[in-house]
């Protein structure tokens, strides 16, 4: 049987037991090895209670261990016979919104942790809003610390009812609710007697069985050119291959294509994967395309099919998560990078700031600070071929780069 791959993010703070949950998944799926466990025991001994602290598994940097918090996104790996899992472990406090946005950008699924004793709180709403902005296809609301709520079905049901209202407001689609205790291991990998009233699956079963095929778009063909391959040898004198990764859609030999933003058209002469010619290639594959005509194509161009074309424009409406300590100032210039294309751009307008806890819009502001999410208008120096983020994640996300520091300062979700 072939294994596929699921990338997910866990949202929550230390207090929600997020690190304990990840530790539990790794521990119970036997992805923790003896030497790591020894190091863990050694560190746990330095703490007061002496029990093995699964949370320590995910705290990577010394500064974080000393402060007992997670500062940065860490990636963790485990697998079962069905799937390989990549966990983006991101801190959940409001001052780390940028890290959560970063971790969420590639995730197919998010686990939102809710403390059974506290129910849906401001942080839960914030995590849900970010999940919705980043368009994460699958949402798991894990109601944790059920052991501290007497494993009560009523507690669980009330939180579900409460969260469902929130999900409806945000338009979240695929939401699953699970009662768990990460600390005690209830309903994580194994079913629990304590939760015998719960008829759903365990967390791991859910992660193993979430359907991922609909997360990949096969109808809107997009191929950003990364690199042009020209061997210029005697036998391959005229070879001109466009190397890149198909980010959505299907390409077949003979397909009519258009190159954007130039608008020049041609036909696919050949498709190669790993040196072998093939009749068709599809989303997520890295390939080399050759075209019939010798037209001018370079890195940053997008080869699309003639149906379902993307928008081409120099003016973008975006939701922008600001990620730098220096504020975003209206009128400032940045480099904008979308897939393989980088262009100069200017932030023309900042329309409003979105309160990530309440969704309220705050108008009339001239600048935005670290972790703010704003609606802005960006003008680019040359045309871009893009889709709206809500419709096609892989061609609707862009980053802003500060040309003076080279730092990535903003994440744009194109509207």
């Amino acid at each position: 049987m072939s294994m596929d791959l699921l990338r997910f993010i866990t949202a929550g703070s230390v207090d929600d037991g997020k690190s304990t949950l990840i530790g539990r998944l790794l521990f119970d799926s036997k992805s923790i090895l003896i030497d790591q466990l020894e190091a863990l025991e050694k560190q746990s001994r330095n703490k007061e209670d002496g029990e093995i602290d699964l949370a320590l598994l995910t705290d990577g940097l010394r500064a974080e261990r000393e402060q007992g918090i997670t500062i940065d996104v860490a990636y963790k790996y485990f697998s079962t016979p069905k799937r390989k899992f990549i966990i983006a472990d991101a801190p959940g406090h409001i001052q780390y919104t940028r890290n959560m946005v970063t971790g969420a950008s590639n995730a197919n699924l998010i686990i939102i942790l809710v403390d059974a004793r506290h129910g849906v709180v401001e942080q839960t709403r914030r995590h849900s809003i970010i999940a919705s902005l980043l368009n994460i296809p699958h949402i798991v609301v894990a109601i944790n610390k059920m052991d501290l709520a007497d494993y009560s079905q009523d507690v669980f049901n009330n939180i579900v009812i409460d969260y469902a209202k929130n999900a409806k407001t945000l338009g979240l689609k695929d939401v699953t609710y699970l009662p768990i205790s990460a600390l005690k291991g209830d309903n994580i990998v194994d079913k629990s007697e304590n939760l015998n009233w719960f008829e759903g699956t365990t967390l791991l079963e859910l992660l193993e069985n979430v359907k991922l095929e609909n997360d990949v778009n096969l109808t809107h063909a997009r191929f950003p050119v990364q690199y042009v391959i020209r061997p210029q040898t005697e036998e391959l004198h005229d070879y001109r291959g466009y190397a890149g990764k198909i980010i959505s859609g299907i390409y077949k030999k003979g397909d009519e294509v258009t190159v954007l933003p130039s608008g020049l058209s041609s036909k696919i002469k050949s498709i190669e994967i790993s040196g072998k010619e093939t009749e068709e290639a599809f989303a997520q594959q890295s390939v080399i395309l050759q075209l019939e005509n010798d037209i001018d194509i370079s890195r940053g161009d997008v080869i699309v099919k003639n149906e379902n074309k993307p928008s081409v424009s120099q003016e973008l409406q975006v939701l922008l998560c600001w990620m730098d300590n220096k504020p975003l100032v209206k009128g400032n210039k940045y480099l904008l990078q979308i897939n393989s294309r980088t262009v100069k751009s200017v932030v023309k307008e900042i329309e409003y700031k979105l309160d990530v806890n309440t969704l309220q819009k705050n108008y009339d502001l001239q600048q935005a600070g670290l972790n703010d999410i704003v609606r802005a208008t960006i003008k680019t120096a040359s045309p871009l071929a893009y889709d709206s983020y809500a419709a096609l994640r892989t061609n609707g996300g862009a980053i802003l780069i500060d040309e003076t520091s080279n730092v990535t300062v903003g994440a744009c979700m194109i509207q």
Partner: protein
Amino acid sequence: MSTNTTYNESHPNSPLGARGLDYLDQLESEAIHIFREVAGQFERPALLFSGGKDSITLVHLALKAFRPGKFPFPLVHIDTGHNFPEALDHRDKLANEIGEKLIIRKVEDTIREKKLTEPKGKFASRNQLQTFTLLDTIEEFQFDACIGGGRRDEEKARAKERIFSVRDEFGQWDPKLQRPELWNIYNGKINKGENVRAFPISNWTELDVWNYIRREKIDLPSIYFSHERDVIEHEGQLVAVSSFIRLDDTDVVLKKNVRYRTVGDMTCTAAVESVATRIDDIINEITATKTSERGETRIDDKVSEAAMEDRKKNGYF
């Protein structure tokens, strides 16, 4: 103009079976994408090649990324002088077979030219010193990007490292000043003197690498497979007897069937007892094993909890 409808709500009967990729295909495609981003964004990249399985896997992926063209970078080997001869033979054979340029710079020369102090002790390792040679080589060739085989599953500090990781001109990594890395967009903008370390197999685990080597039938140096070797036992680890380590009177030289899980220097890489002579056997052993790759075979990582974090900050790969 854009729309607010989701394009992929109704999916025309395309189950994962027909047009889905399994995890190795996805990891491979991601790695090729990263290779091509390096080629597209940098003037003078290099592929750091150690002769170990991870860098051999990188070469295999680079072939997939750039053939029928040539690699847009040379292979660069920082030779500590303490390498396994089998790994060096394999390095030369591979470079020759694929017809790509191989640059070798020796730690030996750096020690002589810069009057560095050779480390002393039983397992005197040049692991620390190779950072000097690496930084000199980067300066000599003005490399702006170095591609390496680092994986996030290897160690806690690596788990937070970006796929494009910026180093200052001293080769230093600052974990607190890392750039956010979103979607599949890699920001390779740097100032003169800085360079980027790029890690195409960041998201692979040890087992993924082995499964990929099996699937792709990638040829490896013989030391990865079981062979008989003279070893001594040191704090529970088996270390090959060679001219690079100091034998004491109390050491007992044993003949054992061993293989290597990682191939670093002969002074800082330990062997594991094994009778695995085929990749299938190795994968079975790894699946059953209870110790992580670095814990079992890297003598240099056990020093302190934050050992890797410290070395990375100082320019180690």
